[in-house]
């Protein structure tokens, strides 16, 4: 995925600000999983001798997607705090290190190469907030046998034979498309317009929707914009001229605001607009005038909705929210929502859970454990969003992406996140 990729992943995550399970069965290193318990004390001592567990996050801290980066890192820090308070990963305290790759693959590669060549031991890594960056980094991390987990959503990254140590913690682009196809069929639409960012993720989204809609006899007309664009009126005018039945908006970060603003300035409200998960990551209702969002619907995960009882029942989610507030991340919660924090949160919870089962922090060993993850026995795992009826981290040797139930998605009027980071549709500025 390109930069947007993260979106999806994140988006997915976003969506999901969901319930989780807590560690009724696992959670802390001592209570997680049962694998490898035989020589656990010896192993723990050996692991502790390795020093802190270094987790590297490479992402865009100063560009258009910095909002999401900050939320993901907040999620990582929350998880690290929880895990460290319980003794760390097999006795190793997690130390989070960050690189500002500005979503530029070349910069990301240079920064990682510098760290590796300087002797920095990296135990695990979040390899970029976009699919393009992830694609650039994975050959290096694979060569150095570094475990990587991130939310970028390009299906090409789900390639265990090529990238055996890489895992996705958010759904792929393809998993977010069927709900719209179903909606389009039910409405009897014949032509759908798509506006998207001209990057790897945007292109994957565009081709994904185009192919899926074509299979059911619906044609598409598309237009892309550059990251630096401040006005999408030309692209939207081009799409409007084709008289589509609906408009799909796939936009990541600040450009999504410009798409909505341009649509409003054109007065193009007669055609319903649908923001995909990536677009829904931006709290539009909090930023643009309510009138701009007329006849606009945002794709959301029901797990992120404040009205979903699971959101208030899930102990892991509630703990994450509570920790976020205590650690000063309230602005992220109400801004981008708990779902985006969950992207980072889930990464470390997953690694911790798998490391305990593997009784090792060695990257390839933990990767093997992830492929054969023994699922928690209780109703809620130590991670959030991907559990039960909503999906799960059911990795296999041929699939390193999570599973997501299609019924998990809904199109809702744009809204704002409440203080807990859960979406309340229909509310805005």
């Amino acid at each position, binding site marked *: 995925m390109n930069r947007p990729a993260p979106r999806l992943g994140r988006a997915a995550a976003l969506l999901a600000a969901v319930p989780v399970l807590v560690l009724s069965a696992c959670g802390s290193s001592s209570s997680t999983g049962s694998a490898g318990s035989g020589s656990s004390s010896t192993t723990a001592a050996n692991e502790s001798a390795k020093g802190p567990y270094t987790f590297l996050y490479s992402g865009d801290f100063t560009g*258009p997607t910095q909002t999401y980066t900050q939320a993901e890192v907040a999620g990582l820090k929350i998880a690290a705090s929880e895990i460290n308070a319980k003794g760390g990963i097999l006795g190793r305290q997690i130390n989070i290190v960050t690189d500002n790759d500005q979503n530029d693959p070349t910069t990301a590669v240079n920064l990682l190469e510098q760290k590796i060549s300087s002797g920095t031991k990296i135990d695990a890594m979040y390899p970029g907030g976009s699919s393009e960056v992830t694609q650039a980094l994975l050959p290096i991390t694979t060569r150095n046998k570094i475990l990587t987990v991130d939310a970028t959503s390009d299906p090409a990254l789900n390639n265990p034979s090529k990238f055996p140590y890489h895992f996705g913690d958010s759904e792929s682009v393809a998993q977010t498309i069927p709900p719209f196809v179903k909606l389009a069929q039910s409405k009897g639409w014949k032509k759908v317009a798509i506006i998207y960012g001209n990057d790897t993720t945007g292109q994957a989204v565009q081709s994904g929707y185009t192919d899926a809609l074509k299979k059911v006899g619906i044609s598409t007309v598309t237009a*892309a*914009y550059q990251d630096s664009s401040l006005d999408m009126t030309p692209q939207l005018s*081009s799409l409007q001229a084709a008289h589509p039945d609906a408009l799909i908006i796939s936009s990541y970060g600040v450009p999504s605001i410009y798409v909505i603003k341009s649509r409003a300035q*054109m007065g193009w409200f007669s055609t319903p607009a649908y923001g995909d998960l990536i677009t829904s990551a931006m709290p539009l209702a909090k930023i643009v005038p309510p009138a701009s969002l007329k006849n606009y619907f945002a794709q959301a995960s029901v797990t992120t909705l404040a009205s979903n009882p699971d959101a208030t029942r899930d102990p892991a989610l509630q703990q994450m929210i509570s920790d976020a507030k205590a650690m000063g991340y309230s602005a992220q919660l109400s801004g981008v929502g708990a779902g985006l924090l969950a992207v980072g949160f889930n990464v470390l919870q997953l690694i911790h859970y798998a490391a305990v089962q593997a009784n090792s922090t060695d990257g390839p060993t933990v990767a093997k454990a992830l492929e054969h993850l023994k699922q928690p026995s209780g109703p809620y795992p130590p991670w959030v969003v991907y559990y039960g009826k909503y999906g799960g981290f059911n990795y296999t040797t041929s699939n390193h992406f999570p599973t997501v139930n299609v019924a998990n998605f809904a199109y809702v009027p744009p809204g704002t996140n409440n203080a807990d980071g859960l979406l309340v549709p229909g509310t805005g500025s």
Partner: protein
Amino acid sequence: MTTVWSGLSIGALYCLVAIGYNVVLLASGMFNFAYAQLVMLGTYMAYVATSVLGLPVIAAVAFGGAAVAIIAVFEERVAIAPLTARHGDHHQAALITTVGVAVIIDGVTSKIWGSQAKPIPDPIPGGTLHLLGGRVGRGDLLLIGLVVVVGVSLHVWSRKTIGGLASLAAAEDTGAAMARGVNTRRLAVGAFAVSGAIAGLFDVVVGARTYATPTLADSLALFGFVAIAIGGSGSQLGGLIGGFVTGLAYAVAERYTNTDWPQVIVFAMFLLVLLTRPRGLFGGAVERQV
């Protein structure tokens, strides 16, 4: 026509940046690479004034003008003056220090206001109107009109007044200007103050169009530079035309070609102008002794 209005309004933003570049260039011969950041800072001043302090639009404009002017003068005092005092005017290191200022402003802005876009109230409520066959925002019309007025005024000032001619002389040959009694240091400081004030006075108009976002400067800087390269560095009229041409060409290309072509077209224009008229469409010819 809606696309044309879109191109003109975005082009007006490029014009504004080109104007700021040229004000400093004309008075001191230096290029302030941080000017797009000053325009961005202006939008945050508008946010502070309107949303935090609750000031009316007029007061927010004055607040922005004063605040950004002060910051611009501070930039000159900290990043330019020490270099010129040590190495003389037109020192190349000044280019680097203004880039440094730009990076600092980007970082500080993100640190203070975060990465989330901040809305700025529209200075002319009422939404859009139909004009000449297209839809255009009332605020966009104001932006376009104000930029034209400021650009033309500065052009006339630089060509018809003693102060303007003095600044031209200082930019062309600092030593000769000083020998004729021109206070070049005061001119340089004044240029930064004026350019900063312009960026600040446009705070509400620009912010209502773009929102206050920490990435705004990146979007404006490159095309602002293209605008003065096309129009002619040192020519306010050229910068004005270069900005509108850039915005229009980009918008029309976005409307009628696929995604990859707009930048290609604009930069092809840019190269064509540089190759055929190195000083830009409105840049003056340079006399050379042979």
